[in-house]
């Protein structure tokens, strides 16, 4: 059990002095580690990082995102992934290697305004991100209620091993598709359930950094602390987070810190 010190910081704030390893959203200045963002600083044995509370989504390879089709060129679709870069979905990803623009109608397959669940397969400093919809559970999102939240709140919304989002899904009988980029689509049997789920999601977004959030969400959903998993209602979240992909949730203190390749590892 390592010593974790946590505090609220704004850019330029000194988090800690000494020979600590900078993890993300921090830089070394002389003997100090300082924050580059507004957020919650954590200093522990593994290193120092700041969990940001604002900032747009920066793509990472293997992230699952929900994107919006904008236009298409003859060879690929331009996809708005709520970032500073638009992504490209190659036509070949959908039509196969023998794609022919003359024969295959791109606009028919995916039209402007359509939403897709996609995985980022390539992205680096020299080019725009590329996505695929070929894996299981990826592809066009046919229906549901669309919400946008800050991408920085997504880890908290998913929760430790999916706990937060599963609590919401089970209590409201909904299925919540979450993109790492902050785009969310909620589907369910009835509108009351969907509306309640949306309220819970908004609550998490607004209060992500505060203690006892889980309790307050459960209260909102009218859920007791020991609700058993209802197997018939249980819908695996579309992008069931695998631990190695997940940015550590803000409240996770006892577990090992996932040393995540986040933005700006110096």
């Amino acid at each position, binding site marked *: 059990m390592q010593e974790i010190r*946590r*505090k*609220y910081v*704004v*850019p*330029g*704030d*000194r988090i800690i002095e000494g020979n600590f390893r900078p993890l993300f*959203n921090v*830089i070394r*200045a002389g003997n100090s580690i*300082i924050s*580059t*963002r*507004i957020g*919650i600083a954590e200093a522990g044995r593994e290193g120092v990082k700041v969990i*940001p*509370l*604002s*900032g*747009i989504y920066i793509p990472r390879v293997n992230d699952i995102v929900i994107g919006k089709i904008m236009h298409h060129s003859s060879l690929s679709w331009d996809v708005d992934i709520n970032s*500073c*870069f*638009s992504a490209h979905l190659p036509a070949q990803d959908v039509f196969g290697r023998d794609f022919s623009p003359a024969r295959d109608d791109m606009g028919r397959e995916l039209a402007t305004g359509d939403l897709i669940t996609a995985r980022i397969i390539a992205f680096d*400093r*020299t080019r*725009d991100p590329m996505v695929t919809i070929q894996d299981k559970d990826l592809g066009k999102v046919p229906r549901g209620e669309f919400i946008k939240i800050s991408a*920085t709140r997504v880890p908290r919304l998913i929760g430790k091993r999916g706990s937060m989002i599963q609590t919401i899904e089970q209590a409201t009988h909904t299925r919540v598709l979450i993109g790492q980029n902050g785009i969310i689509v909620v589907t369910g049997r009835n509108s009351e359930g969907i509306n309640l789920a949306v309220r819970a999601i908004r609550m998490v977004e607004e209060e992500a*950094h*505060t*203690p*006892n959030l889980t309790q307050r969400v459960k209260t909102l959903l009218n859920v007791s602390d020991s609700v058993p998993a209802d197997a018939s209602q249980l819908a695996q979240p579309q992008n069931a987070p695998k631990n190695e992909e997940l940015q550590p949730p803000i*409240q996770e*203190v006892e577990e090992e810190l996932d040393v995540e390749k986040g*933005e*700006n590892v110096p």
Partner: protein
Amino acid sequence: MTQTRSLIDENGKRTDGRTGDQLREIKITVGVIKNADGSAFIEFGMNKIVAAVYGPREVHPKHMALSDRCVLRCRYHMTPFSTDTRKNPAPSRREVEISKVMREALEPSLMLADYPRAAIDVYVEVLQADGGSRCAGITAASVALADAGINMRDIVSACAAGKVDDRIVLDINDTEDKEGDADMPVAYMPHLEQVTLLQLDGVLNEDQFNQCLEEAVKGCKMVYEVQRKALMQKYFGNETELKEEQ
């Protein structure tokens, strides 16, 4: 810019009642423009200025993108009703120059290499101008950049000092700007202790220059406290210390 009347009375009070080392009242509200990625509204004396940040975002037109870092664009602009006589909405040369020095004041604080091929746009609109509007604008812009979640080495705080009635005073107001002897706006990064903007309008000897610079930096540090408090207020409410879950 030499004075004709006395701007400081026998009791050391200035035209607005302040002493030589007092800042005007400052109020900063964060997140006032819903569509922007980051924003701040500042009231600094009678200055009323809004700053909005969009970015990082795609560069338009594409050919202006840089392969290894983000493009930073700043615009300082005054609304027609912001000044004593109505100002034509078209950008004046003064606004063009201030836009440039503002960008150069903010850029050292931003980690632009983290966002290659993207752009950050900073828009500062002066709704009402009092002396020191560029300092107020930079102050608001830096808060807006932090609000937008852009990686920064430090916040930038700005404040002017000047010479009035042959005395070095802090944060000169509109009257002192127009009728005083010298005006020195300064922008400063308080943790890194670096000056990112320095201009001088007027005549100072060497002692006065050094004193004026020190005074302005003192002012910047005071401005920083207001900036920090405003950001903490928006993000963490009244909690300044992180409370742990049981």
